[in-house]
Each structure stands twice: as structure tokens, then as C-alpha cells.
């Protein structure tokens, strides 16, 4: 294969992939740009780009108006806490379902997913009462538990899928060599499962970070995360798109940065997995 052909090919795919990526990313970019405009400029028609009034005012307004660090910390604790706790419970479950499947495994998986079928609004009052009576209302513990349980089926499903990709022969070989169950999980499965676990973790942190019904309904002050912060900037009287965009940018920036590093980890894990 001539090198020039592969370079041309790479160039073609680079251009194509970047075009698609930018198209998908454009609304996010537009939001970030809007966050640096004045309110009047944000709704100007036709939309302003070069001639827009650029300002940092929105950020200082948003910062002055609410206790961002507190909302931020709550989001971090709740999303990471619920994901880690979820992984802790889900990894053994997914492992056993993937490698020691019974004839009921698929039904069990489906049942787990079915716990998510109740529309949120229908259980508003039941949940509210449960959280009040157990003293979990407006606590981080309460939200960590709630989001963990909400996402647990998804975590188990994703892990199950990834574990299924791991060839059974390797396990057989390890067993032949007399590896104990613990060692099997720890030294053989886990390294091979890292990419799957990493991508599960990333997706679930995002799902928890973005949850915007229960996190607002079940909190007031102490445990309120960034979703509540956003709700204090959306749709007030008067223009708000620029400030909302600034608040949104502040809410997505941490997770975007985390995703960036997570992605590197992910890619490394994936290439490791591909060597097998």
C-alpha cells in the first residue's frame, strides 16, 4: 500500500469526520458564544457574530447572583458518588450475569430495566413522601442513593454488554491454571474490562450530572446541584438567554473538561483492549 494513498485517505476522513463533529457541536458552540454577548445582542436578528457586543458581564452577574461553588460541589459529589457506588454494586452483578448466565438471566436484565419505566411525574408524591419520612430530603446521601438506583440498570446493562465481549476461552484457561474466582476477577477480567468500565462510568456521571427533575424536586438548599442553579436562570422576566448561556456554560465546562480527560483514558483503554 502506497503511503500517499493512505495519507489522502486519512485527509478525506479527517475532513469528513471534523465536518460532522462540528455540525453536531455547533449548538453547544453557539451557546458558549451567546454567553459572551449582551442580552440585546443575544437575541438580535439577524444573529450577530462579528459585530456582536462581546462582554464578560454575564459571567460576573451569574457568579454574583448565586453560590456557584456550592452547587458545583453538590453536582460533583452526587454524580461521582452515585456512579462509583453504582459500579461497586453493578460490577459483580454484571460479571456473574455475563459469565455464569442462567436461563433467567435475560428476564432479570429486562426486569432491571423495567424499574425505570415509571414516568417521573407519576411517582412525584410517593417519592417526596418517602424522602421526607426517611430524612433523606435535601441531603447529598439521598440524592446519591436515588441517582445510583435510577442509573443502576443502565450501568449493569452496559457492563454486561462489555463483559460479554471478553472471550470465554481466556477465563477457561485461567481456571485450568487454578486461578481462584477472586484472582480471575481481579487480574484477568478487570484489566480487560477497563475500557468498558471507563465508558460506563463516563456516561453515568453525565447522566447523573444532567438529571434535572429529581435533583430539583428533592432538594432545597443543602444538596441542590447545578440543575437547580440552571433553574434559577431560566425564564425569568426579561431577557435571559445570554445569562442562561453563561450559567449553562458554567454547568457544562467541568464535565466537558472531565470528559476530555476521560476520553483520553478511554482511548488508551480501548487500544489496550484491541491488542488482545
Amino acid at each position, binding site marked *: 500500500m502506497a503511503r500517499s494513498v493512505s495519507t489522502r485517505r486519512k485527509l478525506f476522513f479527517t475532513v469528513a469526520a471534523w465536518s460532522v463533529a462540528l455540525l453536531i457541536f455547533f449548538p453547544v458552540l453557539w451557546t458558549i458564544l451567546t454567553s459572551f454577548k*449582551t*442580552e*440585546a445582542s443575544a*437575541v*438580535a*436578528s439577524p444573529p450577530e457574530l462579528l459585530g456582536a457586543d462581546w462582554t464578560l458581564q454575564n459571567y460576573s452577574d451569574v457568579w*454574583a*447572583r*448565586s453560590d456557584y461553588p456550592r452547587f458545583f460541589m453538590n453536582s460533583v459529589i452526587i454524580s461521582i458518588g452515585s456512579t462509583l457506588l453504582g459500579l461497586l454494586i453493578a460490577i459483580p452483578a454484571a460479571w456473574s450475569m455475563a459469565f455464569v448466565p442462567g436461563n433467567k438471566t435475560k428476564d432479570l436484565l429486562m426486569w432491571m430495566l423495567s424499574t425505570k419505566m415509571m414516568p417521573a411525574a407519576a411517582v*412525584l*408524591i410517593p417519592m*417526596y*413522601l418517602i424522602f*421526607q419520612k426517611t430524612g433523606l*430530603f*435535601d441531603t447529598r446521601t439521598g440524592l446519591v442513593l436515588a441517582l445510583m438506583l435510577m442509573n443502576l440498570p443502565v450501568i449493569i446493562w452496559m457492563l454486561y454488554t462489555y463483559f460479554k465481549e471478553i472471550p470465554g476461552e481466556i477465563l477457561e484457561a485461567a481456571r485450568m491454571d487454578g486461578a481462584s474466582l477472586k484472582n480471575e476477577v481481579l487480574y484477568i477480567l478487570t484489566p480487560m474490562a477497563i475500557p468498558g468500565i471507563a465508558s460506563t462510568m463516563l456516561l453515568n456521571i453525565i447522566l447523573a450530572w444532567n438529571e434535572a427533575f429529581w435533583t*430539583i*424536586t428533592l432538594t*432545597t*438548599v443543602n444538596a*441542590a446541584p447545578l440543575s*437547580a442553579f440552571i*433553574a*434559577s*436562570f*431560566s*425564564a*425569568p*422576566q*426579561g*431577557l*435571559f438567554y445570554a445569562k442562561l448561556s453563561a450559567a449553562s456554560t458554567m454547568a457544562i465546562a467541568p464535565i466537558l473538561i472531565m470528559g476530555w480527560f476521560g476520553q483520553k483514558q478511554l482511548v488508551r483503554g480501548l487500544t489496550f483492549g484491541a491488542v488482545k
Partner: protein
Amino acid sequence: MNMTLRALLGATALLTLAGLASAETTITVATVNNGDMVRMQGLMDDFYAKNPDIKVEWVTLEENVLRQNVTTDIATGGGQYDVMTIGTYEVPIWGKQGWLASLNDLPADYDAADILPAIAGGLTVDGNLLAAPFYGESSMVMYRKDLMEAAGLTMPDAPTWADIEAAAKAMTNRDAEINGICLRGKAGWGENMAFLTAMSNSFGARWFDENWVAQFDQPEWKATLDFYLNLMTNYGPAGASNNGFNENLTLFQQGKCGMWIDATVAASFVTGKDSTVADKVGFALAPDNGLGKRGNWLWAWSLAIPKSSQKQEAAKAFINWATNKDYLALVASKEGWANVPPGTRTSLYANPEYAKVPFAKMTLDSINSADPTKPTVKPVPYVGVQFVAIPEFAGMATSVGELFSAALAGQKTADEALAEAQTLVADEMTSAGYTK
């Protein structure tokens, strides 16, 4: 209980004496993210200077979310909030359930007699003031003086609907992207139905007769809806079925509306810094049809204390500070008179400084011309101008609002929308036990 209290007091006194800790009470205040409330949060230093032993935690949310959270809390006795921001619709309903603490015993300097009678009336149940108004609003006509002048018209201070239609027709210029009139079209009891219910009052319509029988099959509602649809189809902006307060505000500020009939609080926005037409706006009373009622509403965002709150005294201290005359003076000294929360106190409108604000007089006249206890031409069994103060109203009116919004979008005729509204409301009223 008493013993515990005394023991606690004793302990507190000891601690204070020892200088170890102060007896700080933390109250949780739930509020909407409207401009006036946000401004208040920036002025808290004054409150803390006067009440060093009270700390305020804010829960600031947009209107819909706030309403969901506080209603759920109060109806289940959650007790999460010590002060709630609620509107004129909630106060009589919650008051009837005995969920709100009386504010009759606020300190003398609160001067409850100074509250505008129309506003106070809507917040009082059985002689008890259950919520202290933070700002009050009615609705009025905001129009472009320059466009009216160019069209050779003048807007009367008290226009009729015919005047409005003529003005809308004259100002509409589709090529220049100017719509003669912008009105709410977005479905919701607090969106298009607030406007349409108030408008229907001036057409002699009503939601119910004295026996709670729905009235959407009556000619007055037909006249209201036909007039509204005609105005909006011919002179309104495209896509109006999605326009609520904020969408119309943006359009008006951009100079795309000749007229806009909406909340009086909008006046400070359309004449404010984000507006491209700030110096060209005139104000007039909401229109009428010569039947004795105008199409304007009455609303007050107010602070109330749920009975489930354990910190009644601190909550009262906060409400007294936030809705007192001194607070108005404080805002005026920091941000100017135009930014004072409007529509709550007689003394504010007697103030010569405030009279210089361009929309002051029209706001007061609008508020005074609304009467929640006698909102309609024909007698009704309910209280409320742009709403009916019964718990079932929000759900019903939102559904009716969807029908009218569909009519505006051209998906239903006015007759279909009204017929469906009649069936829907009549069914709801029967299932709720008002009618057989």
C-alpha cells in the same frame, strides 16, 4: 415543651454569655427568579445589619419549578421552607386549607393599611392577611408612540377594543417586520389564559354562571375569541402560539411590535437598557368594550409563611423587612425610583419622586380598575380577575389554553375550540363536585 423551650433559652443565654456562639436562626426563603426578587438578594446586607441573628438561605427558581416545589411541600406538610413566594391565585386556596400563618401581627411600622386595597383584598382570607405583597401588577397597553404618530393616530388613555384594532391595522408593516400587535399565545393558565380571561371580562364573558355552569358556549366567549384570533392572524407575529410574556417582551424590545398588552411590570423592561425602543413607548389602560369592565388583570407576587415552618418569628422579621416602606426607600436610594418594586403601597404613588417615573400613574390606575371580587359584567360565584380561585382552575385553564392556542395556530376553528372547552370544563366541574 415549655420546659424544653426554657432549657433551650437558658442554654442559649449561657452560650451567648460565654461568647461561644450566637443564637443564629437560619430561614429558607423560596422565591421566583424575577428581577425584583433577584435585586432583593443583592440588598441583604441591610437586612443582616438590622437582624444579625437571622441568616437567610435562598432557593431561587423559575416560576413553574418554584410553584411545583412549594405546592408539593405545603400540601404534604413538608416544612422545608419558612417563607414562600406565591401569587394571588394560591393565597385564597391555601388560606382556605389553613396552610398559611396570619400576618396580622406584623410590627406597627409595617403599616398594613398602606397596602393598595385592590391588592390587599386578594391576599386576605377571613380578615387575616395571609401574604405580604412584594410587588403588584395589572396589565395595560404598551404602544409605540413613533409608529402611532407616523400612522396619524393617537392612543386614548382609555382605549376601546375598536381603537386597538384600528391602531394594530395602521401600524402593521410586514416588510419592515413590524407587527401591529403582540399578544400571548402560549398555552397555560398563567400565559394565554391570563390574558384571554381578563380580555373576556371586557367582552361581558365569564367562566361560570352563579351555579358553576361553564359558559364557553355563550356568545360573549365567541366574540372574545373571534376578536383575538382576528387581531393576531392579521396583525400579530408569525408563530404566536408559542409566545408568552418573555417572547413578546423580546419582540417589543426589538421594535417588532406596535402594541403589546401585558403585565404592568413590563414597563420598566421596555423602557430599560435592553430595549431598542426605550424612549418611544407610551402607556394606556387595557381596552374595554363599553360594558363597564376593562381587560386588565391583577396579580401580586407575595411572601407568605407556611404554618409548617418552625421559625415563624424569624420569617416574619424577614417579610417585614422585604415588604416594608423602608425597603422601597432602600431600593430607590441604591437603584433609583424606577426600579422600586411597584404596585403594593399607596404611599409610593403619593411620593412626588415616584410620580416622575413614566409608567407610575398608568400602573396605579390599572391596578385600581381591577376588582377581583367583582371581575365580570354578569355575576359570578368566584373571586379572581384573570383566574378563578378554585384548586381545579390551573389544570382546566391550561387545557382550555391549549385549545385556544391550537385555534391560534390554525389547527382548530374558534367554534371547535370553544365547543371542546365547554365539554372539558363542564366535565371537570362535575367530577370535582361543583355541578351535578
